[in-house]
């Protein structure tokens, strides 16, 4: 295993732990973006560019969008 793979694996493990430990939903979306970035680099280092492309568009655009819209809708407290 090349050192780049080892470093990326470590970063992804830290990122996954950070995503779970952040309790505030809005901040978690930002940390999810960084976790997605780590996953993208991991997929590229595992020689899977198609999967990395999918992960780029999903974790940087689609997933934060639906999460933030849902959170903005529910921000006003009980209806």
């Amino acid at each position, binding site marked *: 295993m090349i050192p780049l793979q080892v470093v990326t*694996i470590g970063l*992804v*493990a830290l990122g*996954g732990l950070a*995503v*779970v430990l952040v*309790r505030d939903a809005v901040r978690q979306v930002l940390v999810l973006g960084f976790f997605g970035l780590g996953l993208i680099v991991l997929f590229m280092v*595992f020689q899977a560019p198609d*999967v990395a492309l999918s992960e780029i568009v*999903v974790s940087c655009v689609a997933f934060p969008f639906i999460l933030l819209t849902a959170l903005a809708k529910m921000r006003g407290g009980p209806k």
Partner: protein
Amino acid sequence: MSFLPYALAAWLFFVGLYGVVTSRHLVHLVVCLGVMQSSTYVLLLAIGYRTGKKAPIFLGVSPKVGAVDPVVQALTLTDVVVSVTTASLILALVIDIWKRSGTLDPDELRKEET
């Protein structure tokens, strides 16, 4: 050292599972489900990797050089896009729950039932 990617898959799975079980906010729960899903992608890609080989794209390259396994990549790439759609279905359910009961805390929802 060669066990490290599999250990990462197990780590992500159990960290996500811990987040789901101890969550106090339904949207936080959805994101932890996403972490669990990404553990399966890492496991699939780690299984298919072959040392020293490159990506299975042969534009201008002869197929004789060999590549990593393409079948697991095909499985993973459609799964990544479909997972965001199912996550949005769960979020639509969460919005519905919020409209009906006003709270997003799973423990309070359980107390309301009793």
